[in-house]
C-alpha cells in the first residue's frame, strides 16, 4: 500500500531576483540553415536576419531568425519557408530559462546532497530538466505567424 510522508517547506519569503540563469544553445544559425535546407549550397543574406536558401541560382526558400522576449524567457528561433511561402520548419536556436536568483548561490547548490555525476545545476552550461508548470510557447507561435505574414509572400 502506498503511503505518504510529509515535510514542511520554508516559506521562502526572500524576494526572487528573476534573471536568466541558464541557457541552452541548440543550434547555431549556420547549422540550422543546413538542416532546414540540406540541398542548398549557399545562403544569401537578405537583410533583417533573413537568408535566401539557394542551390545555385535556384531559390529553395527563405530562412528567418527571430527572437521573442517574455517576462522570463528569451528565445532565438528560426523559421524556414519554402518558395510557396509555407512554413517547413521551426527550430529553437537558443533558449534561456529564468530560474530565480538562488541557483547562483553556492549555498543553495550545496543543498542538493547526493547529486549524481554530470554536474547538475551548472549555471550557464548544460541546462537541467525542469518539471513544473508548463511553459507556453505562445510567443513563438505568434512570432511564426508574424514571420509568415511578413515574409510568406516574399519567399516566392
Amino acid at each position: 500500500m502506498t503511503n505518504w510522508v510529509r515535510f514542511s517547506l520554508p516559506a521562502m519569503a526572500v524576494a526572487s531576483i528573476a534573471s536568466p540563469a541558464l541557457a541552452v544553445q541548440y543550434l547555431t544559425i549556420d547549422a540550422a540553415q543546413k538542416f532546414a535546407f540540406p540541398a542548398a549550397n549557399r545562403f544569401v543574406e537578405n537583410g533583417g536576419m533573413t537568408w535566401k536558401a539557394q542551390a545555385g541560382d535556384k531559390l529553395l526558400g527563405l530562412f528567418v531568425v527571430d527572437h521573442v522576449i517574455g517576462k522570463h524567457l528569451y528565445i532565438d528561433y528560426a523559421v524556414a519557408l519554402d518558395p510557396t511561402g509555407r512554413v517547413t520548419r521551426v527550430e529553437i536556436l537558443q533558449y534561456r530559462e529564468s530560474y530565480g536568483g538562488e541557483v547562483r548561490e553556492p549555498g543553495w547548490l550545496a543543498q542538493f546532497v547526493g547529486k549524481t555525476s554530470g554536474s547538475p545545476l551548472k549555471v550557464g552550461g548544460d541546462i537541467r530538466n525542469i518539471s513544473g508548470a508548463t511553459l507556453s510557447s505562445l510567443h513563438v507561435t505568434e512570432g511564426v505567424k508574424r514571420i509568415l505574414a511578413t515574409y510568406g509572400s516574399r519567399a516566392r
Partner: protein
Amino acid sequence: MEAAHASVRRARPLLGTFVEIAVAGATISAMEAAVEAAFAAVATVHWLMSFHEATSDVSRLNRDAWSGAIMVHGWTYQVLETALDLNRRSAGMFDVAVAPALQDMGLLPRGPDLSSASPSPRLPSGRLRPSTTGYGEGRGEGAFPQARTRGEPPSPAPTLPSPADGGGKGGGDLSPQARRGEGCGQFRLPGDAYDAIQLLPENHVRFAHRGVNIDLGGIAKGFAVDRAIEALRHRGIAEGLVNAGGDLAAFGPRRHPVDIRDPRHPDRPMCHVVLSNAALASSAGQYDPSRSDRPSSSAIVDPLTGRPSHTIRGATVCAPCCVIADALTKVVVNAGEGAAALLEHYGASALFVSAQGRVHVTTDWRNEVRFAA
C-alpha cells in the same frame, strides 16, 4: 567514424510548449534521423489531438461524434482508452469529457439542449498549470489547454450505469477496455465519461449526446512524449530524453537530474529528483476562485482525509510511462493522498504541495526527492 560520445539536442515549439529531445550514444547522422522521427511523432500527436486545430481528431469528435460514429487515428483511440480507464479508476477525478452543462449538473445530463459545441468555459485558461512565464494568460496555452478535471466530488452513484444510448454504426459496443474491471481501491465507479464517450470497434468513437466535449490536454502531452521515446528506441538509439514542457521521459543508462518547480513560486526550483528509465510530469494546481464556474462547490473532497483539493498547489508524478504520469498529476491535484491506490495501481510515485507549504511524498519516493532547502 563519428564520435561515439557525441549527442544531439533539439527543441521545437509543439503541443503548446517547447519540446526538447536529446539523444546520445550513436552516430550523429543516426541521432539526427532519430530525433527527426521523434519530432514527427510529437507533431502527429499535436495535429491529432489539438483542441484548436479544426481538422484534428479532437475537433472532429467534438463537432460530429454526437451524431454518429467517427473514425479516429489509432493513437487518438489509444489515448481515449487510457483516459476512460483513468476516469473509471479515479472516480471521475480525471475526465476528458466534461461539457459545460454536464459539469454543472454533476453527472450525466439528459437532454441534448446543451447547445454549444464550444470549449468548456474554464478553458483554455491553463487553470491547473499557470504559466511560470506570464505567457499563460488568456489563450496562452496554445494548442493544448489543460485537461478538464472534475470540479465536484466523486459521484455517489453506486451502480454501473448503462450506456446512455445504443449508439453508432458500430452497434454501440463499448470496447473491452471500457467494460473491463472495477474501479480499484476505494474508488467508486462514476459513470460519466464512461457513458459519454463510446469506444466502438475499428477505431470508431461516438459521443452519447451533443453536449459532450473532450479536451485531451491533460494526457496527450504525456502520450506524445511516449511516442517520441518509442520512435527513438525504434531507430536503435541507446539513450535519450524527451521533455515536453516539463512532462518528460528518459531511457538508457544515464541518470537525468530534474528540478521540480515550487508551484507557489514557479521561478524557483523546490526539489530535485533523478530520473532513470521512467517518466515524470507535473501540474501546478493553483485553485483560482475567480476562474471557477462553480465557486461555491469548489471543494473536491479527498475520500481519505476529507480535505478539499483546492489546497493542493501542485503535484508531480513519476510513472513508467509519460501518458500515465501526465494524467495522474491531475488526479493527485484533485485527490491528494486519496490517490494512493491509483498511484500504486499504475506503479507510480508522487509528491504534492499544499497551500500551507507542506509537501506530501509517497514513501517509495521519499529517498529520491532532494529538497532545495
